C-alpha cells in the first residue's frame, strides 16, 4: 500500500508566514535580560577616566588619591596590567597594511578624545565616578591630526610613530583600459563626494560584565556584542584561556548597527580585572562614552568620474577615495573595512567595463571607525547614484531611463564588476520598475512640474544598489582580513522530553532570529514552531561562531540549521520506522508528529524521543542513535541583494527643513522567511539612512574635541522626521543559497542617503545645485542655496548691463 507521500514543498510552510515574534512577550513585559540588568553578588562597577586630549603623551599619572577614595577597590593604568594580556592586532593580508595594537588602556600616549586611560573599580558606579575626579593625568600635547588629507601628507604628526605613516591601508583596483575609455567618451561627469562621520547610535549603550570562577579557572563575559564568537576567540588568545574555560554570552542586546560589532578595550579590561580581583565586575557605558568611544562610521572623500557614450551608456568609472578611519585599525576588521569596500562597491549594479580606483585609509586623532550598517556601500552608492543623476541631467535623460540602460541585465548574470565582486542573479531592473510603478513615477514628475511652477523646492530621488550578502568563505567580509567569516554552525537536538533546541553561533540584537530560525527549523523537521527554542549569542552553544554582521544571519545560520535539521529528521524517521513498524519512505513528519502515510498510525516527536532515549526495549539496542546533529554551512560566494529606493521631499524656503514624503523601497532579498520582520528591517535601515542624509554627524573641532557628544548635539531622527514607508518585495529567481535566502538587514541604510541626496539635488536643480556632501543639514542647504542665488543674481545683473 504505497500512498503518494506528501512532499515537503506541498506542506503548509512556516517559512514565508507572518509569524509573531517569540522574543516579544519578555521584551514587552520588561523581562528582557540585557547586560546591565545582570547583578551577581559582590558585583563591582568600573568607570573609566578617558582622554580629554586628542593626541598627547602621558607624562605622568597620579592615582593615589583615587585609590584612597571611599568604596574604591582598584585603580589601574596600563602599567598595572603589564603582562596580563597579549596585545591584539587586527591582521590583514594586504601588502600595504599597517595594524595597530588594541590595548585595554592607553599606553604611553593617547590618540583620541575618549580613549580609556585609567580604570576605577568600586562598590558602585557612583563611587567609581567620584574617584575618577581624583585621578590626575599630566598630558604633553602632540599635534592634532584632524583633517584626513593633511594626515595623509608626509609632514603630518604621526599617531603611530613605529609605522612611519598615518596611511594604514592603500589599494588600487583596475580593470580594462579606463584612460582610453575616458578619452573616447562622449560625456564625462564627476564630483567630489563627502560623507561625514556618523555614530551607530544603538539605544542600549555598550556594556560588559566579567565573572571569574576561581574553582574552575574559568571566565564568563556577558557583553552587549554582536560578535560573541569573535570576542571569545580573541580573548582566548589575549588571556591564554581555552574555549572551555572562556564563555562569552551576548544576552538580550539593544541594537548594534555595527557599533557592537568589534572587540573593545573595555571587554578586555573587565576580563582582566575580574580575574585579578576575584569579583564580578561590570562596565556600562554612558551616552557620552558611546558617542566618543564606540566605533564610528563612514567619513570618506570620494572623488569619482564617469565616462559615458552618446546614448548614456557608462563606459568607465574612476575614483580616488580617502577614508578617515580614526586612531586605530579596528579589531578584527582593520582600517580597510570601510574605505576599501567603498571602492569595492562603487561600480554598483551597472555594466561598467573599465574601472580604476585608488583608496587610502588614513589614521587621524579621532575615535576609530568600524563596521556600520551598510559598510562602504552607503558612501559608494551615494557617489555612484549622484553620478548617474548628473549624467542623466547632462544627457537630457530621465534618471529612471539612464539606470535601465546601464543595469546588469538578466542575461548577464553572473556578472563580475570592475572591483572583482560577482553579482549572482538579482532583480536590479525588476526592483526599479516595481518601485516606479508603485510610486506613480510619471504622476510624481507632474506634481513636481506644478510645484516648480509655484516656486517650491520639491524633489524626487531614485537610488538603485546591489550588495553582497551572506558571504561565504571564498572572501572575507572585511577585505584582506584573514579570519574566516564564511561559515556558521548549527546544533539541532531533540531531547528526551521531545523539546527541540537549535543552537547557532550568530547573535540577535533585534533581528528576531529566535523567531525566523525557528521557522526554518520547523519546516525542515516537520515540527511545531512553539516546540522549538533557538539558542544564540552564546559561545558555549556551538564549537565555532563569529556573530551577526554583514547581512549573514538568515543565509548562514539558516543554512546551517537546515542541514542539521535534515539529519535529525532522518534519525527521527529511522527511529519511528522501528516504533511504527513501517518503511521510512512511508513516514511523514508534520506538526510535531510522525505519521505512516495514509493511516492513522502516528507518534508525537515526544513519544519517539522518550522511546529512543528512555524506554527499554523499544528500539533495537544497536539502532539507538541520538536525535542530534551538528552541521556547518558555507555558502562559499555569497549572494546579491538589490533594491531601488524612491524618495520625495520638499525644502522649506524659510527654515531649510527637509520634509520627506511617502518613501518607497522595492527590494529583492530572495525567499522571505517572515515578511513582517523583513519590512521592519527595511524601515529601520531607511530611518538610519534618513539620519545619515539629513541629521547625523559626529563633529570634531580643530583641537580634536568631539562637539557632538550628547543626543542634544548628535541628532537621531525621531518619529516625525521619518517618513511613512512602503516596502515591495520583488520575488525573482531564488539564489543558490540553501533555503534561497539573501541578506537584507542593511539595505535600507545603503539606499536612503543616495535617494535623498538625489531628491535634494532634484529639488534644487533650478538653482543649479547638486548635493555632494552629507548630511545635508539645514545650515549646509542654506549656504548652498544662498551661494547659488547670489550667483544667479550676479548673472542677471550682468545680463541687464
Amino acid at each position, binding site marked *: 500500500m504505497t500512498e503518494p507521500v506528501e512532499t515537503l514543498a506541498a506542506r503548509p510552510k512556516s517559512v514565508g508566514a507572518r509569524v*509573531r*515574534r517569540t*522574543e*516579544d*512577550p*519578555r*521584551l*514587552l*513585559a*520588561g*523581562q*528582557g*535580560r*540585557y547586560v*546591565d*540588568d545582570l*547583578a551577581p553578588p559582590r558585583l563591582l562597577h568600573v568607570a573609566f577616566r578617558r582622554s580629554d586630549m586628542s593626541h598627547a603623551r602621558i607624562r605622568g599619572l597620579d592615582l593615589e588619591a583615587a585609590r584612597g577614595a*571611599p568604596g574604591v577597590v582598584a585603580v589601574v593604568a596600563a602599567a598595572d596590567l603589564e603582562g596580563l594580556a597579549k596585545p591584539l592586532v587586527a591582521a590583514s593580508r594586504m601588502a600595504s597594511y599597517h595594524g595597530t595594537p588594541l590595548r585595554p588602556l592607553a599606553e604611553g600616549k593617547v590618540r583620541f578624545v575618549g580613549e580609556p586611560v585609567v580604570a576605577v573599580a568600586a562598590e558602585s558606579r*557612583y*563611587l567609581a565616578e*567620584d574617584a575618577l575626579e581624583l585621578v590626575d593625568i599630566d598630558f604633553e600635547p602632540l599635534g592634532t591630526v584632524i583633517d584626513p588629507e593633511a594626515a595623509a601628507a608626509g609632514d603630518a604628526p604621526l599617531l603611530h610613530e613605529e609605522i612611519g605613516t598615518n596611511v594604514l591601508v592603500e589599494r588600487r583596483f583596475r580593470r580594462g583600459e579606463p584612460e582610453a575609455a575616458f578619452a573616447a567618451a562622449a560625456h564625462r561627469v564627476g564630483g567630489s563626494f563627502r560623507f561625514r562621520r556618523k555614530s551607530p*547610535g*544603538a*539605544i*542600549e*549603550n555598550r556594556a560588559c560584565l566579567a565573572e571569574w570562577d576561581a574553582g574552575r579557572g574559568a571566565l564568563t563575559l556577558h557583553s552587549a556584542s554582536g560578535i560573541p564568537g569573535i570576542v571569545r576567540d580573541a580573548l582566548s588568545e589575549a588571556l591564554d584561556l581555552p574555549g572551555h574555560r572562556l564563555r562569552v554570552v551576548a544576552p*538580550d*542586546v*539593544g*541594537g548594534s*548597527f555595527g557599533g557592537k560589532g568589534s572587540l573593545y578595550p573595555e571587554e578586555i579590561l573587565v576580563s582582566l580585572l575580574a580575574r585579578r580581583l576575584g569579583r564580578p565586575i561590570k562596565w556600562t557605558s*554612558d*551616552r557620552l562614552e558611546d558617542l566618543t568611544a564606540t566605533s564610528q562610521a563612514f567619513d570618506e572623500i570620494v572623488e569619482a568620474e564617469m565616462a559615458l557614450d552618446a546614448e548614456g551608456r557608462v563606459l568607465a568609472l574612476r575614483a580616488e577615495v580617502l577614508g578617515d578611519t580614526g586612531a586605530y585599525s579596528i579589531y578584527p576588521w582593520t582600517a580597510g573595512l570601510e574605505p576599501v569596500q567603498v571602492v569595492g562597491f562603487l561600480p554598483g549594479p551597472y555594466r561598467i567595463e573599465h574601472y580604476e580606483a585608488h583608496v587610502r585609509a588614513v589614521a587621524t586623532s579621532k575615535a576609530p571607525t568600524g563596521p556600520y550598517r551598510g559598510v562602504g556601500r552607503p558612501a559608494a552608492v551615494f557617489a555612484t547614484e549622484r553620478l548617474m543623476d548628473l549624467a542623466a541631467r547632462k544627457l537630457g535623460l530621465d534618471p529612471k531611463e539612464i539606470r535601465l540602460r546601464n543595469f546588469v541585465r538578466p542575461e548577464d548574470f553572473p556578472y563580475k564588476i570592475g572591483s572583482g565582486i560577482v553579482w549572482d542573479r538579482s532583480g536590479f531592473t525588476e526592483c526599479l520598475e516595481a518601485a516606479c510603478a508603485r510610486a506613480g513615477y510619471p504622476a510624481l514628475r507632474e506634481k513636481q512640474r506644478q510645484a516648480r511652477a509655484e516656486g517650491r523646492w520639491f524633489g524626487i530621488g531614485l537610488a538603485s544598489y546591489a550588495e553582497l550578502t551572506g558571504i561565504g568563505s571564498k572572501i572575507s567580509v572585511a577585505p584582506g582580513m584573514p579570519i574566516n567569516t564564511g561559515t556558521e554552525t548549527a546544533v539541532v537536538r531533540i531531547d528526551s522530553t521531545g523539546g527541540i533546541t537549535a543552537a547557532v553561533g550568530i547573535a540577535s*540584537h*533585534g*533581528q*528576531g532570529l529566535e523567531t525566523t530560525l525557528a521557522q526554518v527549523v520547523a519546516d525542515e523537521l516537520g515540527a511545531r514552531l512553539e516546540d522549538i527554542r533557538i539558542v544564540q549569542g552564546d559561545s558555549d552553544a556551538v564549537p565555532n561562531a563569529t556573530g551577526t554582521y554583514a547581512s549573514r544571519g538568515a543565509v548562514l545560520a539558516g543554512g546551517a540549521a537546515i542541514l542539521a535539521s535534515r539529519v535529525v529528521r532522518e534519525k527521527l524517521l529511522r527511529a519511528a520506522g522501528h516504533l511504527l513498524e513501517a518503511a521510512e519512505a512511508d513516514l511523514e513528519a508534520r506538526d510535531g508528529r510522525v505519521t505512516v502515510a495514509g493511516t492513522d498510525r502516528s507518534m508525537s516527536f515526544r513519544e519517539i524521543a522518550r522511546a529512543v532515549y528512555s524506554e527499554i526495549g523499544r528500539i533495537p539496542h544497536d539502532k539507538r542513535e541520538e536525535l542530534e546533529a551538528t552541521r556547518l554551512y558555507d555558502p562559499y560566494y555569497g549572494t546579491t541583494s538589490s533594491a531601488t529606493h524612491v524618495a520625495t521631499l520638499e525644502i522649506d524656503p524659510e527654515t531649510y527643513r527637509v520634509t520627506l514624503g511617502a518613501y518607497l523601497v522595492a527590494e529583492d532579498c530572495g525567499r522571505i522567511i517572515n515578511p*513582517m*520582520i523583513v*519590512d*521592519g*528591517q*527595511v*524601515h*529601520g*535601515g*531607511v*530611518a*538610519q539612512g534618513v539620519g545619515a542624509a539629513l541629521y547625523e554627524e559626529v563633529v570634531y573641532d580643530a583641537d580634536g574635541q568631539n562637539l557632538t557628544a*550628547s*543626543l*542634544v548635539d548628535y541628532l*537621531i531622527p*525621531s*518619529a*516625525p522626521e*521619518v517618513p*511613512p*514607508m512602503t516596502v515591495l518585495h520583488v520575488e525573482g529567481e531564488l539564489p543558490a543559497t540553501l533555503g534561497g535566502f539573501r541578506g537584507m538587514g542593511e539595505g*535600507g541604510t545603503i539606499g536612503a542617503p543616495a535617494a535623498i541626496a538625489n531628491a535634494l539635488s532634484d529639488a534644487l536643480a533650478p538653482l543649479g545645485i547638486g548635493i555632494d556632501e552629507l548630511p545635508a543639514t539645514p545650515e549646509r542647504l542654506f549656504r548652498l542655496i544662498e551661494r547659488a542665488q547670489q550667483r544667479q543674481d550676479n548673472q542677471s545683473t550682468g545680463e541687464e548691463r
Partner: protein
Amino acid sequence: MSGKRLVRMTVNGSPVEEAVEPRLLLSDFLRQVLGLTGTHVGCEHGVCGACTVRVDGSTARACLMFAVQAEGCRIVTVEGLGPAEALSPLQEAFREHHGLQCGFCTPGMLMTALDLIEKYPLASDAEIREGLSGNLCRCTGYEHIVAAVRAAAQRRREPSS
C-alpha cells in the same frame, strides 16, 4: 556618601520604603534598588526616552529625577503594564504590529504610548508621531510603532471591534 534619606512611594501598586542617597537617580533606584530592570537607561540626559515611567499619572524621565523627588508618588513602570503571559492590549498591539525589534526603547515607548492613547484623540498618524517624538527608537523606523499605537487607540475607542 553618607546622609541617606528615607523615601516612600508606591511602585506598580506596591508600597516601597527605602533609605537612599539624595543623589540616586530614580532610574537607578528602580533598576538597582528595586530590581525592576524593565525601565531602561539610554542617555541619562533626558533625550532618548527609554527610561520613561509614570509619576502620578504623567510621563516622566526617570533619569532626570532623583528617587527622593518621588517621595509620596505613584510610580508605574513597564512591569506594571502586564506580565509576559498576560500582555495588556497595548503590549499586544506592539507584538501584533511588530512595534519592537531589540526591545530596548520599548518600555519607554510603551509608557509614552499608554499616555497618548489615554489622553489624546490621536486622529492622525501625524499626531501619533508628534506624541512619540520624545522617544527614540533606532530599530523600527517608527512605522510599525505608529501602526501599533494607531491600533491600540482604535481598540480603546471601539473595544468591541
